[in-house]
């Protein structure tokens, strides 16, 4: 895998130009071609909207290695026993059949931005007029001393949906009576800010029923986290004495692990653990780096249309993008994808391009029928995607409110997966 474009072009590349000119079609080929890499909340949504709304005018190819896509969102509910793994699996049949999207189950291994060509692991090459990258996250190598990807069977990250999530659940179930579960939480910024803490809640929920004397340790390099007051209230209400959260101030960032010995060392103190979830620091999915659109760990984009600051014909969605104030979430990726789809379609077919509006809501489940949420709306400024307005659940809310919030999250899951795959 060669990196043939490492030069970062810096900021200020003309985003406006991509919006105005319905140029670049038909030079030797018929329809304008869009290639989307990554079939998650960003990529599947973008492919679906471009194909659906262009009504056959744009040739859309979606590259995604997995035939069945397991959402990372709601995977914590599987860990808590509130969902079956199959409930989280989705396939691309409808996108192909209903909208004519070419769904290619392969890995994209290179992007040549000069010749506008994507190379696949299977050897084929795909030309594009517009390229949309929505590769999600990869992990920063060496972020946690003692852990590497080769340790992911002993100490799963479970931060991509599917088999890793199943493995973690099995390891929690296999813990001896009174055993210890440890989580190494990630530094900012990372996918799904409340995710690690919802996960702790769900594992506590499982252990409370099956292994009530078990202990949970969280080593966290941060001194505060998303929905912190809500989670801490919930942990004290539902799982009193079970969860020991060690934040930055108490050495939570001074962590190393030994996957062979199954030990975790926090601020010099060695603990034997029976199951351990290591969530390392994150960066944009590797293909973004190969495409040469990253600056540091993430890919900077223009807020108006999610186009890369390095290349007006490349767009980066979701977790991989560095856009400003939006959290890295499936909801955000879906929201960004629709803004991007509108802009890409406008650039390729001359359809009307409307101003960007973004939004996000993250629901978390703390215990049965105890749901909380945080959300915000955003707008595009010259500089970034900027927060406009927001809200968060209150501590001490009535149980009816929490139950309604959880039911709403179930509705959202049905809604967003329909918006991606149906």
């Amino acid at each position, binding site marked *: 895998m060669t990196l043939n474009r490492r030069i970062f072009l810096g900021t200020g590349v003309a985003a406006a130009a991509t919006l105005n000119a319905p140029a670049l079609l038909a030079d030797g080929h018929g329809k304008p071609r869009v290639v989307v890499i990554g079939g998650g909340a960003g990529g599947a949504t973008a492919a679906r909207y471009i194909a659906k709304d262009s009504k056959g005018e744009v040739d859309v190819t979606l590259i995604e290695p997995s035939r069945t896509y397991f959402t990372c969102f709601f995977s914590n509910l599987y860990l808590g026993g509130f969902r079956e793994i199959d409930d989280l699996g989705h396939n691309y049949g409808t996108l192909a059949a209903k909208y004519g999207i070419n769904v290619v189950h392969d890995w994209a291994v290179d992007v040549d931005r000069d010749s506008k060509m994507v190379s696949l692991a299977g050897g084929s090459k795909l030309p594009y007029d517009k390229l949309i990258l929505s590769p999600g996250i990869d992990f920063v190598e060496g972020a946690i001393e003692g852990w590497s990807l080769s340790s992911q069977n002993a100490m799963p990250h479970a931060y991509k949906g599917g088999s890793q999530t199943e493995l973690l659940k099995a390891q929690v179930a296999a813990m001896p009576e009174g055993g210890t579960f440890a989580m190494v939480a990630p530094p900012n910024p990372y996918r799904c800010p409340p995710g690690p803490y919802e996960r702790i809640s769900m594992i506590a929920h499982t252990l409370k029923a099956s292994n009530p004397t078990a202990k949970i340790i969280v080593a966290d390099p941060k001194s505060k986290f998303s929905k912190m007051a809500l989670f801490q209230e919930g942990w004290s209400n539902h799982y009193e004495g079970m969860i020991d959260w060690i934040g930055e101030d108490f050495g939570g960032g001074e962590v190393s692990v030994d996957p062979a010995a199954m030990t975790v060392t926090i601020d010099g103190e060695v603990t034997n653990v029976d199951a351990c979830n290591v969530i390392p620091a994150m960066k944009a999915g590797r293909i973004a780096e190969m495409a040469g659109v990253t600056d540091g760990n993430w890919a900077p984009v223009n807020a108006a249309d999610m186009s890369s600051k390095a290349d007006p014909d490349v767009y980066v969605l979701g977790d991989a993008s560095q856009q400003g104030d939006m959290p890295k979430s499936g909801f955000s990726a879906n929201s960004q994808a*629709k803004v991007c789809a509108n802009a890409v379609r406008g650039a390729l077919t001359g359809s009307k391009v409307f101003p960007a509006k973004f939004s996000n809501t993250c629901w978390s489940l703390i215990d049965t029928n105890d749901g909380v949420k945080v959300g*915000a709306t955003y707008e595009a400024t010259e500089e970034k995607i900027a927060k406009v307005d927001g809200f968060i659940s209150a501590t001490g809310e009535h149980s*009816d409110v929490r139950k309604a919030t959880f039911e709403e999250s*179930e509705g*959202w899951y049905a809604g967003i997966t*329909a918006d991606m795959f149906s």
Partner: protein
Amino acid sequence: MTRLRVLPAALAATFVAGAALANQIGDAEAGAKVFSQCTGCHEIGKGAEDRIGPHLNGIFGRKAAAHQGYAYSKSMTRAGNDGLIWTAETLDAYFENPRALVSKTRMSFRGVKKAKDRADLLAYLRGFSDNPSDLPEAEPTARVTDHDLDPAILALEGDPEYGEYLSNECLTCHQSDGSAEGIPSITNWPTDDFVVAMHAYKRKLRPHPVMQMMAGRLNDEEIAALAAYFKDIE
């Protein structure tokens, strides 16, 4: 009501300010006549019981769907869970157009169109709530303003193409095929009901933090566009 005082002036101004009715209490005697439209389903006063609808004693200040023993619709229960409290203001909105405030309420009643009739009805109902001595100004029985939507807003012709784009944002949660699982359906609504409901969120009359936030940044044209698009969605 403090939450009204913090509304931006421009926003408040989009509603007709109920002129003579603002801060005025209606005529309870006239309200008894208006209530005759309700007696098919609701009882009120000494010995009142739940019938097709719940009895209405003590309605002021109560959370929606909170009266024990009555089986409320899912929609009403949800509104209560979202924080809908019956005050003069929310009741007035409900009487004006029940479905605009609570989408799938089982109260199949088209609404009391005249603001004065509603004011009279509220005055009548208030006599059967716990703290009539609070009257007339104090919460929850105070009338702050009439909030009929400006007819000019209702008359706006929405652009369905713009509505389709804006709808993208709705469809992360609401489903385009009209399914309602934990989140209500928003398809095929009469445009007036849609517009009134969205303005009620925008004005924070309808409870629900996500919807208040989403509606809060939509302007009149955008709401009209969404209404036009969702009305005819297949």
